[in-house]
């Protein structure tokens, strides 16, 4: 695979990374073996005419919006939360999970005027509860969300659920699914036009693989 113009691709470290790298390889991108456990933040792959930026997932849409990366691979959960002005080109259908409301088993509305909800996704959570006509107080946490109901910081949480194991191990249950989540291919507004050939080329590569699945 070799796009005509060089593209800069923002890749999320963490949960999605392995599956995304696998998808790239199957799309014919000659990723070097050390790509997967590289500590470098910028990894050029000259054979594919691509430069990869390895970023924190929530920052991927930011890099792409500002145009320092032309395209990016990122979860829909991050896109919903960050609300960046980028093209969402393709559902890569990897890292499938859902964003859900969870709590202690037997959770009932407490009658409190503004029950607390802890989450890494304050925008998504606020929007969801507003649409449900529920007034809640959203508390932003940066990790170990499951802790919040256990120690009484909040009575419910909004978080990513894939197998449900983490919830179960912490004695929590999934109460409502907000929406299913998959990984997306995104593009910068200007790159989508100024480098349309290269972007289309990568899009088609991915699209053909995704359709095979």
């Amino acid at each position, binding site marked *: 695979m070799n796009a005509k113009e060089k593209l800069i691709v923002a890749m999320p470290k963490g949960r999605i990374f392995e599956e995304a790298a696998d998808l790239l390889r199957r799309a014919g991108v000659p990723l070097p073996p050390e790509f997967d456990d590289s500590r470098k933040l910028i990894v050029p792959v000259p054979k594919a005419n691509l430069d990869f930026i390895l970023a924190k997932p929530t920052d991927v849409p930011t890099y792409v919006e500002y145009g320092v990366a032309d395209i990016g691979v990122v979860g829909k959960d991050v896109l919903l939360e960050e609300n960046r002005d980028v093209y*969402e080109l393709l*559902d890569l259908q990897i890292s499938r999970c859902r964003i859900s409301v969870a709590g202690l088993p037997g959770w009932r509305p407490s009658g409190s005027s503004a029950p607390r909800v802890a989450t890494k996704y304050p925008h998504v959570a606020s929007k969801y509860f507003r649409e449900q006509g529920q007034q809640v107080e959203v508390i932003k946490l940066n990790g170990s969300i499951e802790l919040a109901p256990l120690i009484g910081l909040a009575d419910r949480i909004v978080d990513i659920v894939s197998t449900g194991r983490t919830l179960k191990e912490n004695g929590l249950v999934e109460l409502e699914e907000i929406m299913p989540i998959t990984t*997306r291919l995104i593009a910068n*507004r200007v790159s989508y*036009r100024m480098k349309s050939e290269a972007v289309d080329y990568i899009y088609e590569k991915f699209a053909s693989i995704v359709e095979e699945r």
Partner: protein
Amino acid sequence: MSKPLGFEKPLGMRDILPDVLEKQRWLEHQVKACMKQWGYREIGTPTLEYYDTVGGASATLDHKLFKLLDSEGKTVVLRPDMTAPIARVASSLLKEEPLPLRLMYTANVFRAQKNEAGRNAEFPQLGIECVGSSSVDADAEAIALAVSVLKEADVPVFKIAVGHIGFLEGLLEEIIEEKEDREKLKEFLYHRDYVGFRHYAKGLALPEGNEARLYELLRLRGGKELLERAEAITVNGQARKAVNNLRELWEALEAYQVEEYVLLDLNLLRSLDYYTGILFEGYAANQGFSICAGGRYDSLMAQFGRPCPATGFAVQMDSLLEAVNYQPVQANKFLILYHANQRTEALARARALRTEEKAVVITQRKEEWAQTDFSQYTEVIDLTGEEAI
């Protein structure tokens, strides 16, 4: 909230230092000169406008307007763009002027922003409005002038993407019965969410051919050859009319010899209900944000009581500043050093140089000399003979 520190400014506001402003003024000069050559005359409008008039008519979303109360308790806005104010003037003070009116502006506009770099709440725009012409020639003129402006400003590599709202709406109407579904699909396009668009289209359970037509819409980007593909997925009516409109536009752009800068992009949507025909957006290489944008807005003028077609565009000065490499012209700047008893002579020398349009700085303060960066001066005239330079 704590009291602001002495150097802080309200969110999204900024200072412009001399080096940047010099470049900005040069760009303004280039752009304005170009617009003037195409017969556009400059107009000024107030910074504050009523929320109920300009605020409501503007394409800017309500939550991005800066709203204030005036002394009578009426809601006013800091102008969010220049198009609505110009429509107001064209319908009032200039209402007896024959159409089309060709007007240009350079002005700061205001939009409430979140706290982030590169998102200024006050930013300069340069633009034109051509009020009163419905012809495709006016659309072509706007696009060709945009090309010309970007060239005059020395933008090294740029492209203008051209879309047509009539094609988009016509096609959606042909395929989808329910208005609500059409609005929803338009929203996905507006948010550039093609995944959501495809997903929603799939959920509509359309006959297979129709679903494929919707997906094809997402691929309609390219040159003139794309118009045939576009025509192939439309049946008749509004969408076909739009394709013909674009074909005429392309012919006109060829006549202007600017087609190499233009690409068609039929899913381009810039605002949900503002533009009414051909619309466009310009991009420069290696810039994350668009550099200029505009299009036809035939329903705005009616809101000010003078229904007539119109088109125009605005250039974002901030994007232009980043896209352009500017070599500042080394101005002829002189420094005269003198003692108190030499003042008359120093002033005479300065006066003589200034009549030759040179910039002259004079100083007799010895303590200042030590801090002076003499290299910024073309010449230092030392009347004291003490400062060996």
